[in-house]
């Protein structure tokens, strides 16, 4: 019942159009996502990039880009952003990296370890607004540390809270969420360090510092640097914290962008916002490319095993 012997008859169905379209129909499956991301992701990206090349009246050209480039306030804001990002990236990566090491060198899977991972996951997402309030509760007026300082160290900067609103304050604030982020990003790399390497080094006669100098640090550096770049981008893009804390409109580039977009006094200048954004994108892409390259290097090493 299964077969009727066929002697080479039957239509030898060629490459009909129906077969062809059948195979292309799979592309329809990505259509919904494409439309959705086109609307909410690609459109705004295009809007910003193309808008950066327009001026207030919509004419094309690099007029606004040049203006922004030459504006001293924009430059100052940019410099601040870059400085703070670099500082917090370094501080965060060192502190976070060391903490991650402290976690790994203890009991993996133990209570301290798991609780640290959980806390890091949550703190890394701790929004800017809440973070600011946390620090105000600590260092601000009537805060924990400031009231303590008023009593015991009345002359110090901790006794009053103005420092919080300046560069130093922002840096300290940002570092707060850089540390958990570093832990989360760097921890997997540390976990991949094989104890056999240390043992091999010992067996070959190496001392502790030699191991770290020749083996440990070189292996960890690309990953570490990559994580630091990620932290840099994170800090550079941050807006919520600064916006909650400061009212100076262009102390940092994200703030300048917001002002340019929504300023009630003096009129909004979307073109300026877009140009500033374009410069931001450039910085971010450079940093992320660096990150990508470093990650690729690390995964190549991991593959060879």
């Amino acid at each position, binding site marked *: *019942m*299964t077969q*009727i012997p*066929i002697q*080479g008859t039957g239509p*030898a*169905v*060629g490459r009909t159009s*129906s*077969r062809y379209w059948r195979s292309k129909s799979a592309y329809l499956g990505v259509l919904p996502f494409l439309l959705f991301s086109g609307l909410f992701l690609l459109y705004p990206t295009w809007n910003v990039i193309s808008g950066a090349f327009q001026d207030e009246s919509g004419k094309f050209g690099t007029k606004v880009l040049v203006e922004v480039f030459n504006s001293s306030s924009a430059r100052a804001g940019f410099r601040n952003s870059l400085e703070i990002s670099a500082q917090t990236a370094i501080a965060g990566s060192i502190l976070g990296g060391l903490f991650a090491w402290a976690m790994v060198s203890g009991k993996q899977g133990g209570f301290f370890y798991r609780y640290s991972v959980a806390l890091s996951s949550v703190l890394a997402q701790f929004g800017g607004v809440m973070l600011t309030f946390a620090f105000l509760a600590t260092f601000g007026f009537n805060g924990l540390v400031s009231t303590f300082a008023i009593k015991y160290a009345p002359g110090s900067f901790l006794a009053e809270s103005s420092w919080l609103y300046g560069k130093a304050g922002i840096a300290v604030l940002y570092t707060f969420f850089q540390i958990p982020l570093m832990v989360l990003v760097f921890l997997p790399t540390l976990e991949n360090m094989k104890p056999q390497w240390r043992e091999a080094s010992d067996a070959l006669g190496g001392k502790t510092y030699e191991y770290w100098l020749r083996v440990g640090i070189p292996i960890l550096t690309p990953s570490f640097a990559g994580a630091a770049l990620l932290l840099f981008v994170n800090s550079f893009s941050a807006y919520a914290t600064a916006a909650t804390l400061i009212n100076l409109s262009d102390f940092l580039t994200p703030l300048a962008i917001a002002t340019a977009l929504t300023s009630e006094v003096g009129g909004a200048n979307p073109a300026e916002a877009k140009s500033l954004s374009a410069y931001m994108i450039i910085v971010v892409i450079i940093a992320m490319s660096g990150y990508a390259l470093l990650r690729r290097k690390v995964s190549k090493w991991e593959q060879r095993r």
Partner: protein
Amino acid sequence: MNNLTKHFGKVKALDGLSLDIAEGELVALLGPSGCGKTTALRALAGLQELDRGLMIVDGKDVTFQSANKRGMGMVFQAYSLFPHMTARDNVEYGLKLRAHRTSGDKRKARSFELLELVGLSTHANHYPHQLSGGQQQRIALARALAISPKVLLLDEPLSALDAKVRTQLREEIRRIQLELGTTTLFVTHDQEEALSIADRVGVMRNGQLEQIAAPDELYDRPGTAFVAEFVGLTNPISGVVSKGTIELLDSTVKVLKGSITIGQGVALVRPENIEVVASQSGNATVFSASFLGASCRLSINLNDGTRVTAQLPSSDAVGLSAGAPVKVSLLDRPVFVKPII
């Protein structure tokens, strides 16, 4: 299956393959990797599109039917059990999809029946990762059979398993197949597997069917040089063909269909068709002897320098060890002769 053709870019995976399978038959597709056997199987399952060709099952043209409507049972090489379901759930899956036809109780009964059939009823509530490779494949088989498929398709189901499990499981597959009478297509690159359990074996190469026949016929009367050499061992010995026979090793034997008909050729002689007797005035010397239990394999140097491998029952090989002079001749069985090149 008729005139199945499929290209993958420049590579022709299937080249006009045509094949009929009778009801209840187990046909094995055998061939080296890349010969297209898996492609043909997957085409039949509906998982592979063809450039050309026609497939008819039970009188119906299924060529354009989508895979989930063809009613075939398929067993994959590995990793096909749903990891988040127990063995029983896996087996019941196909039945659940046809829920409108079977009630919950009937499903349970059926899945139990099949688990019994493959001998794993005690493991019904285990998860795939708790089962060994052989057990997993048996569950996969039960799952495929649960839906009473018209055709059972097996894509190298044993390749990922240990040798011992392989032998056991193939016997079981055959036993179950005979018991249920399911039409089956079995793809493998292992000739022992194919020959031991199939009703007919189709040898494939480069997308085409070289020969399809019952195992013994394939072995004794290969239709092409490739089949002769792929299935079983052969000794290539040169000789001259004329009038349908060839003279080799002081013997004259008939030549099989498909061989060259006249002139110089290379005969492909099976080891067990070579007769070896101890003889002081022989035409050869034993180079080495391997004792294989029931039979003995002798590596023999002919006086003209060629080396052949002969296989004898051990009782006939007594006294034939390295250095023994022997006389070598051919048993009167037809042989396949291929051209010199």
